[in-house]
């Protein structure tokens, strides 16, 4: 089986939000809607302060609470682990939004534009089907499906890889098949210590965060 998953290396992420911008560009999300965003966390008190940049979005859970509560069956989970929304079925009740522990879902009541009036670019990419319904990160499922149809490998070939992963300047984001032991994400998970957000809720996220090397040794000093 295939289980598409994303890995974010918290040691590498610099919080540049390029992934956020790439996602907005690829998916034409309206102002205020960020399917991929990076949370800026500052922890501790002066002078012992640490900062972490945490990419978040839909975690494409194995047991998605959003899917169970959805009264219209618009939210579904594909066999490859990607959680999808059928915009033609969704009634926009936002039950999924309050059921998601990751604040990953948005509902846009009316069209909004970056500079007030609709630009030419926004006019071309406007999709009325996404008004009044729930939306969220799709793992760029159209790119994945199209890439697979062309014999490409998601996570390896950029044409078949989510836009946020392609755009990451620090290679902090990786995408691939978690069930394939030879995939990039499997290798990263094998070599590093990782966690998943809100693991205690039992949702089984498909989004892993790397935070340290597995051997636990201090990294060699560099000059």
């Amino acid at each position, binding site marked *: 089986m295939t289980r598409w998953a994303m890995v974010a290396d918290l040691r590498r992420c610099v919080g540049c939000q390029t992934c956020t911008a790439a996602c907005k560009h690829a998916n034409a999300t309206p102002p205020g809607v960020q399917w991929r965003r990076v949370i800026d966390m500052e922890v501790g008190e002066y002078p012992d302060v640490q900062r972490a940049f945490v990419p978040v979005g839909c975690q494409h859970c194995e047991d998605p609470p959003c899917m169970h509560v959805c009264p219209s069956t618009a939210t579904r989970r594909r066999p490859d682990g990607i959680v999808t929304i059928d915009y033609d079925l969704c009634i926009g009740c*936002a*039950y999924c939004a309050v059921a998601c522990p990751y*604040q990953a879902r948005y509902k846009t009541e009316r069209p909004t534009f970056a500079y007030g009036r609709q630009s030419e670019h926004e006019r071309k990419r406007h999709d009325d089907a996404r008004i009044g319904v729930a939306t969220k990160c799709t793992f760029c499922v159209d790119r994945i499906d199209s890439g697979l149809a062309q014999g490409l490998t998601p996570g390896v070939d950029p044409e078949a890889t989510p836009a946020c992963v392609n755009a990451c300047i620090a290679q902090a984001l990786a995408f691939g098949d978690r069930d394939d032991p030879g995939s990039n994400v499997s290798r990263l998970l094998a070599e590093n210590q990782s966690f998943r957000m809100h693991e205690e809720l039992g949702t089984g996220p498909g989004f892993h965060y790397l935070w340290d090397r597995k051997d636990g040794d201090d990294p060699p000093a560099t000059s």
Partner: protein
Amino acid sequence: MSPPGRPQGEYRRAQPGGTPVTFGPNPWQQQSWDARAAGNFIGGGAGCGLLIFTTLAGAPGSLRQGLLVLALLLVSAGLLCVWAEIGRPWRAINVLFHPQASWMSREALVAPLLLGCGAAALVWPALQPPAALLAAAFLYCQARILHAARGIPAWREPMTVPLLVATGLAEGAGLYWLAAPAWGAGGTAAWIGFGVLLALRFAVGARWYRRLVPVLRPAALSAVNRAGHGYNAGSLLPLALVLLVLAAPLPPVLAGLLQVLAGALAVAGGALFKFLLVTRAGFNQGFALPHLPVRGVRR
């Protein structure tokens, strides 16, 4: 629209040796459900509670019919509220598509049965007990809807289910006592039943709150505290009035007035609590990291 960008707020670091080790921005109030969603829980809960209590109290004649109509209107108004909130109201029928798992679908399936059976009970009183059972089912579905919202810690707490059921029943009893004295109806048993429901509501609410205290972050707990004031006042004040009317030899007119006041307090307290629970105390989970990234030399 849901709040975008970075949530603001204070940050918390776990105490040494404490579990779990979490870091992250504080949760913030959900923006997906507003007063219209709260209206469904308020109207549906009170309406179902009223139908059930009216049936159990054996309300006579025109009082029975009047209260039945009020109950059905409240349930309908609640459904209308939620219909006004959904983004695609003209495909609302799709709400019925997922009864296998979604409590919202189940509620929507029970609703027409409840309204139909309740309306028929206006003409055929024999149908009132089945209507009361459907009202209980509807009320239970509503409670489970909130409980299934796993993104909101105050809602997903298991005691939310008995909490919403208990408050709905107490509000229904309160509505009954708002009207019954004017008809010269409402016996001692119904009055004691009202008191029992108020005591039950308070006890369930206290247990719900005790379970939330160690779970919620400060801002979320503060919001629950604010919602709890109305809840406590709406339970304890009418409960005191119930005991007063039972214990003291009051003139019938005064006793009737106190009964109406107790009913009004019970209804207002429950409605205010549900409104605040949805629109003010619905703080989400926030984000949390069990580990911070290790960069350079370990700390």
